[in-house]
């Protein structure tokens, strides 16, 4: 336990108090048992119980702070003691003797580990009893990369470099278009016929070339906007996306 407990220790008949760290109630019990007998098989659980309970009671009488688990153990031991002293009741399971035996086993287990720990610490320990070489040369494993690349990768890489860096020539195919200038000239020359509102599309030339027709339409539309701006023609569109109509300006 982390907390400091004032522990009563009997010396001769008198009671002296030591501030110590018991490692829990089992530890105190083990020390008491050790005081009884060297062989834990031979200890008297009854006597042990009395000693422990007496300790705790004295401590409480002196108004010392006693940790809860010591009190729990004292209560359990008091119960065990009364069971051991009462006439045997075959109905009780486990029997008080069984409980006493278990307690003894636990003390023996703890004792075994305490002794084992001491024997462990007493062995020839590295750095205390036996020594390793103080200044070893040390072993090193140097990692070296074995670079791997296949011939194909190499050639492909070169091909890619060349492909990437070769000057690219961009060729634009010759396409038939109607320029804006041409469209304006054409529209102006044909305006004489447009006394009434006339669909702009009727001014386009005849052609089987659809791409050329689109170019004509786009250029003529732009030309019509330009001519409308200068007042040479009027423009009309009745609804969105409806036909664009032109008429000679006044």
């Amino acid at each position: 336990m982390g907390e400091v407990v004032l522990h009563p220790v009997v010396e001769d008949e008198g009671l002296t108090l030591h501030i110590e760290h018991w490692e829990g109630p089992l530890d105190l019990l083990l020390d008491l048992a050790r005081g009884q007998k060297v062989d834990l098989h031979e200890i008297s659980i009854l006597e042990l119980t009395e000693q422990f309970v007496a300790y705790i009671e004295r401590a409480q009488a002196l108004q010392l702070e006693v940790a809860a688990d010591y009190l729990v153990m004292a209560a359990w031991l008091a119960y065990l003691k009364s069971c051991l002293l009462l006439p045997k009741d075959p109905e009780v399971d486990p029997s008080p003797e069984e409980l006493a035996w278990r307690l003894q086993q636990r003390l023996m287990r703890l004792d075994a580990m305490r002794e084992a720990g001491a024997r462990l610490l007493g062995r020839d320990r590295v750095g205390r009893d036996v020594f390793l070489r103080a200044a070893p040369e040390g072993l090193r494993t140097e990692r070296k990369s074995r670079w791997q690349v296949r011939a194909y990768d190499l050639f492909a890489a070169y091909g890619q470099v060349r492909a990437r860096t070769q000057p690219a020539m961009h060729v634009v195919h010759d396409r038939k278009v109607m320029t804006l200038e041409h469209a304006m000239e054409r529209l102006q020359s044909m305006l004489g016929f447009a006394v009434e509102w006339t669909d702009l599309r009727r001014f386009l030339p005849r052609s089987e070339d659809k791409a050329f027709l689109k170019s004509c339409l786009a250029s003529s539309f732009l030309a019509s906007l330009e001519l409308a701006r200068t007042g040479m023609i009027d423009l009309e569109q009745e609804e969105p996306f409806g036909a664009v109509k032109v008429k000679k300006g006044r």
Partner: protein
Amino acid sequence: MSEDFARKVEAVLFAADEPLTAEQIGDHAGEGDVKAALGELAGHYAGRGIELVERGKRWHFQTAGDLAHLLRRTREEPRKLSRAGTECLAIIAYHEPVTRAEIEAIRGVQISKGTLDVLMEAGWVRTAGRRETPGRPLQYATTPDFLTHFGLASRRDLPGIDDLKAAGLLDPLDEEALELALSGDDEEEDEVEVGDEEV
């Protein structure tokens, strides 16, 4: 021929700054029967001022134990363990793999926070997976460095382990013992522990 290989093994072990497995030795010494060479060397060094020892399947040279008095610079222990730490270490070594609740049951007291940390920091104790029981508690076990430090060829060399086993003092604790050991508030702590240690 074999002697030639033995001196390579000797050189590798001598130069190493930590104990080596037979495999690691072979990696450096090259082709040869490492086991045979180790046996040969161990025989050669027996009784000398330096000894070749095996600790948990790893080998190293160290000075002979009976010469400690010549070499000890101070009387101080390399790592002073508290009583709680010593008991915990013994319990883990003799019972491994063991859960914290089991350690506490044997000692009849809770383990204070730093105790296991100190053992792990020393490199003697490691976590050893979770026990597949309700709550999946972490288990603890010792490390090869533990064997090296305490001069044990294997866990079978733990002092008195055969007698303790025969006496049933290393048997797994039954559940009643666990319950008996721990008052109610311990269980809470156990749960907290699981959370903490998962980090």
